[in-house]
C-alpha cells in the first residue's frame, strides 16, 4: 500500500461516504482498516497461520496412521510424558476433527471468499471499496475469536472436539459420549458460529457491492469469472449458512440448556442418562448437510473463477464459452441445494429419498463437465505461458477431474454402500479440496501478488513449490482410492488391528513420508511469500498483461479509493485476448477503447 493517493474530491460523490484520513495511524491503516484491499491481505496473512496449523494437525493424523501407538516425534514426549510420548486413542479423532475444521472453515473459506473476495471484487468491478467497509472489517475480525475457540479447545478438560467435522449427535451432543464432547464440542460450536457470522457479513457485503457498485460499462456479463464466482458463492452462502447457524444453535442448546432436539428418547451413553430426550439425530444430519454440501461448492466455485481468469490470461486467448461458464456456476449453486442427502445414503435415511438425491447428485456433475470442457476449449488453439499461476491453475483442472469423477462413484448409491466412510471418500475430499480449492488458491496468490504488493513472487521458487506440491500431493492422496477399495475405514486410529487391512501399513507409511515432504514444500511457499515482500522483483501495474479491470488501477498497488480521480469506464469483456485489434501479445484491456477490426 505504498502509493496511497490522496483522496480525490471526485471520490466523494461516489457511493461511499466513509471519511478519508490523510494521516492514518498504523492502527487504522493496517489493523483496523476498512480498506477492502488491506482486509483481503489481512485474511491472507491469517491463512498462512491457519494453514500451518491445519497441516500440522494433518501430520499428526498421518503419523498415527503410519506408526500407530509409537512416540510422536518432537512433541510427543512433551504432551504425553507418562505414555512414552505416544498419542492416546481419544486424541486421534480430535486431530481429524480439528484438522478438517481448521482447513475448511479457517483456511479454504476465508482464503477464497475472504482474501480474494475482498481484494478482487471492488477492483474487478471498478468500485472504490465495498458497499459497507465497516461491516467488512468486522467480517475479518470475527475470524479471530473463531481461531481462539478452536485453539483453546485443546486446553479445556476433555480436549478438543472429537466427533468429526460433521459432528453427528448424539456423539457430539452428549457430554459423556466422548472426551472431546465434554467441553471441546461447545468451543467448536462457538468457533463455527463466529466463522458463520464472518461469512454472513461478507456475503451480504459482496452481493450488495456487485449489484450496486459496478462502474460505468461494467455490465454483469462483462464481469470476470472470479467476480461472478464470488457473487454466486455469496448468494449460496447467504441462503445456506442460516440453516447451519440454526443447527449449531440447536446443538449448542442441547449441550448447554438441556434441550433435546437431537437426543432420542431414553438415551444412556456411557452409563449416563441423557435426559428425557424425544428428539431425532437425523435432523442434525439433514440440517448440517443442507449447509455443508453447498459449502463444498462455496469452496470450489471461487477457485473455479480464479482458474478461469488465470487460464485465459496465460493462454492469451478468450475464455471459451464465457456465458455457459457463468450459467454452469449458477446451476452448480442452484442444484447444490438439492443434493445434500448424498452424504446420508447409509444413514438410515428413507431409501426412496436417497434415490431422489442420487439422481440430483448425478445431474450436478453436468455443469462441472461444462466447465471442464470449456477450460480445455480455452487451451485449444492458444499460446500457453507456463508461469507459476498458470501451472497451479492447470493442476487445478487435472486434479479436479479426478476428484469430481470419484464423486460419481459415491453418487451411485449401491457403490456408496461399500465406499461410504472409507478412504475413498478421504481421497475425494482431498482431490477436490486440496487438488481443487487449494491449488486454485495458489494460482490466485501468485497471480494477484504483484497487484497486492507491487512485486512478484520469485518464479523459480514458485515453480519448485508447485512441482513439489503437485508430486507429493498425488503421492499422499491417490493411494487413498486404493485403500478405499479395500474398505479401509476413515477416522480409524488403528486400522491395522483388522486382518483385512493389516497389510496396508507400508503404503500408509509411504503416504505419510510424502505428506511430511508436502509440508516442507509449503514452507517454501510461505518463505517465498514473505521474502518477496522485500526482495521480490518490482513490476509495473500489469505484469501479466492481463485484461481484467483490477490490472488497470492508476497506481501499481492501488491506493485508498482505488481509482484516483476518475473511476474507470469499461467498454468490453474481460477476455478479449488476441482480438484483431489487440496488442501484439494479445492484450486488450477492459478499458481499451478501440473499435473492432482496427488492427493494433
Amino acid at each position, binding site marked *: 500500500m505504498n502509493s496511497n493517493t490522496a483522496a480525490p474530491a471526485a471520490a466523494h460523490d461516489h457511493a461511499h461516504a466513509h471519511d478519508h484520513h490523510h494521516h492514518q495511524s498504523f492502527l487504522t491503516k493496517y489493523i483496523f482498516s476498512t480498506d477492502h484491499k488491506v482486509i483481503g491481505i489481512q485474511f491472507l496473512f491469517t491463512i498462512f497461520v491457519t494453514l500451518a496449523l491445519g497441516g500440522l494437525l494433518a501430520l499428526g493424523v498421518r503419523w498415527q496412521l503410519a506408526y500407530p501407538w509409537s512416540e510422536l516425534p518432537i512433541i510427543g514426549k512433551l504432551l504425553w510424558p507418562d505414555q512414552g510420548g505416544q498419542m492416546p486413542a481419544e486424541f486421534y479423532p480430535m486431530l481429524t476433527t480439528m484438522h478438517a475444521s481448521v482447513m475448511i472453515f479457517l483456511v479454504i473459506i476465508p482464503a477464497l471468499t475472504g482474501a480474494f473476495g475482498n481484494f478482487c471484487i471492488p477492483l474487478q468491478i471498478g468500485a472504490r471499496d465495498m458497499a459497507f467497509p465497516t461491516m467488512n472489517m468486522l467480517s475479518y475480525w470475527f475470524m479471530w475469536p473463531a481461531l481462539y475457540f478452536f485453539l483453546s479447545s485443546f486446553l479445556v478438560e476433555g480436549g478438543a472436539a472429537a466427533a468429526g467435522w460433521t459432528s453427528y449427535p448424539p456423539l457430539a451432543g452428549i457430554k459423556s459420549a466422548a472426551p472431546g464432547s465434554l467441553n471441546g464440542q461447545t468451543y467448536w460450536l462457538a468457533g463455527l458460529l463466529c466463522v458463520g457470522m464472518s461469512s454472513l457479513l461478507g456475503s451480504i457485503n459482496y452481493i*450488495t457491492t456487485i449489484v450496486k*457498485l*459496478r462502474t460505468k460499462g461494467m455490465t454483469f456479463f462483462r464481469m470476470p469469472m472470479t467476480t461472478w464466482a464470488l457473487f454466486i458463492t455469496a448468494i449460496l452462502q447467504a441462503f445456506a449458512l442460516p440453516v447451519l447457524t440454526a443447527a449449531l444453535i*440447536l446443538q449448542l442448546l442441547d449441550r448447554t440448556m438441556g434441550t*433435546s432436539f437431537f437426543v432420542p428418547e431414553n438415551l444412556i451413553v456411557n452409563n449416563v442418562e441423557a*435426559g428425557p430426550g*424425544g428428539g431425532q439425530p437425523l435432523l442434525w444430519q439433514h440440517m448440517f448437510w443442507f449447509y455443508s454440501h453447498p459449502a463444498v461448492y462455496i469452496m470450489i466455485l471461487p477457485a473455479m473463477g480464479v482458474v478461469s481468469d488465470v487460464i485465459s490470461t496465460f493462454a492469451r486467448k478468450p475464455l471459451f464459452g464465457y456465458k455457459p461458464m457463468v450459467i454452469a456456476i449458477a446451476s452448480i449453486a442452484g442444484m447444490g441445494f438439492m443434493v445434500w442427502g448424498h452424504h446420508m445414503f447409509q444413514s438410515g435415511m428413507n431409501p426412496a429419498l436417497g434415490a431422489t438425491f442420487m439422481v440430483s447428485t448425478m445431474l450436478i456433475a453436468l455443469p462441472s463437465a461444462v466447465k471442464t470442457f470449456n477450460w480445455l476449449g480455452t487451451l485449444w488453439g492458444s499460446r500457453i505461458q507456463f508461469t507459476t499461476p498458470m501451472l497451479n491453475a492447470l493442476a487445478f483442472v487435472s486434479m479436479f477431474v479426478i476428484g469430481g469423477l470419484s464423486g460419481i462413484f459415491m453418487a451411485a448409491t449401491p457403490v456408496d454402500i461399500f465406499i461410504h466412510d472409507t478412504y475413498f471418500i478421504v481421497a475425494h475430499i482431498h482431490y477436490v479440496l486440496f487438488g481443487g480449492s487449494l491449488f486454485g488458491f495458489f494460482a490466485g496468490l501468485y497471480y494477484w501478488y504483484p497487484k497486492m504488493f507491487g512485486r512478484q513472487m520469485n518464479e523459480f521458487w514458485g515453480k519448485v513449490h508447485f512441482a513439489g506440491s503437485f508430486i507429493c500431493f498425488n503421492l499422499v492422496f491417490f493411494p487413498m482410492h486404493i485403500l478405499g477399495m479395500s474398505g479401509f475405514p476413515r477416522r480409524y486410529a488403528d486400522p491395522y488391528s483388522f486382518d483385512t487391512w493389516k497389510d496396508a501399513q507400508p503404503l500408509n507409511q509411504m503416504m505419510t513420508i510424502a505428506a511430511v515432504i508436502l509440508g516442507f514444500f509449503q514452507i517454501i511457499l510461505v518463505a517465498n511469500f514473505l521474502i518477496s515482500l522485500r526482495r521480490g522483483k518490482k513490476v509495473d501495474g500489469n505484469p501479466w498483461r492481463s485484461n481484467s479491470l483490477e490490472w488497470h488501477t492508476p497506481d501499481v498497488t492501488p491506493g485508498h479509493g482505488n481509482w484516483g480521480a476518475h473511476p474507470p469506464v469499461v467498454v468490453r469483456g474481460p477476455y478479449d485476448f488476441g482480438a484483431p485489434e489487440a496488442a501484439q501479445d494479445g492484450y486488450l484491456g477492459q478499458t481499451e477503447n478501440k473499435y473492432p477490426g482496427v488492427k493494433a
Partner: protein
Amino acid sequence: MTTVPLPGEAETGPPIPTSKFALWLFLATEIMFFGAFIGAYIVLRSGSNGWPDPHTVLNPLIGTVNTVVLLGSSVTVVLAHAAAVRNELRKAKAYIGFTFLLGLAFLVVKYFEYNAKFHHGIWPGGPATYPGHEHYQPGMNMFASCYFTLTGFHALHMIAGLVVWAGLFFKRLEPRHELSIELTGLYWHFVDLVWIFLFPLFYLLPNK
C-alpha cells in the same frame, strides 16, 4: 487512462438504494434462519410420540392479546414512517415511542408467560409430566425445547429491534432519518411476520 465510453454504454447498477438492498438481503437470510427453526419444530412435533395438548401448556388468549399488541406496534411503525416522510418529525418520534412501548409490552407478557412455565416445571429437561400421561415426558421436554428456542430467538430479535428504536427515539430526528426509520421498520415487520406464524404454530395448532 480511459476515454469516453463507446456509444450505447449503459449505466450499471440498478436504481436500488444500497442499504435497503442489503437489508432485504439480510431479511432473506433471516427467512432461512427462522425457517430452519420452524421446519425443525414442525417435523419434530409431528414425529413425536406424544406432544402435550397446547391448552395444557399455553394460554391461547394471552397469545392472542400479545399478537394484537405486536401487530399494533407494526401499525405505529408505518405511521411513524408516514409522519417522517411528511417531515412531521415530532409525530414520528411519538409513534416510535409507541412502537417501543408496545414492543416492550409484548416482551413483558412473554416474561410472565415464561415464568408461568417455569413455575409448572416446564423447561427443557424440566420435571413436568402430567398425571396419567407419563408418556408425555419426552413430548413435554420437546415442547419446552421448541417453545423456548423459537419464541426465545424471536424475543432476542425484538430486543435488538427495541434497542434500535430507542436509539432513534433519543436521537434528534432529522429528515434524513427517514431511511433509518424505514429500514428499522422493515426489520420490525419481519419480526412481526415471524410471530404471525409462531402464534398459530404454538398456541392454536391442535394435536391430531
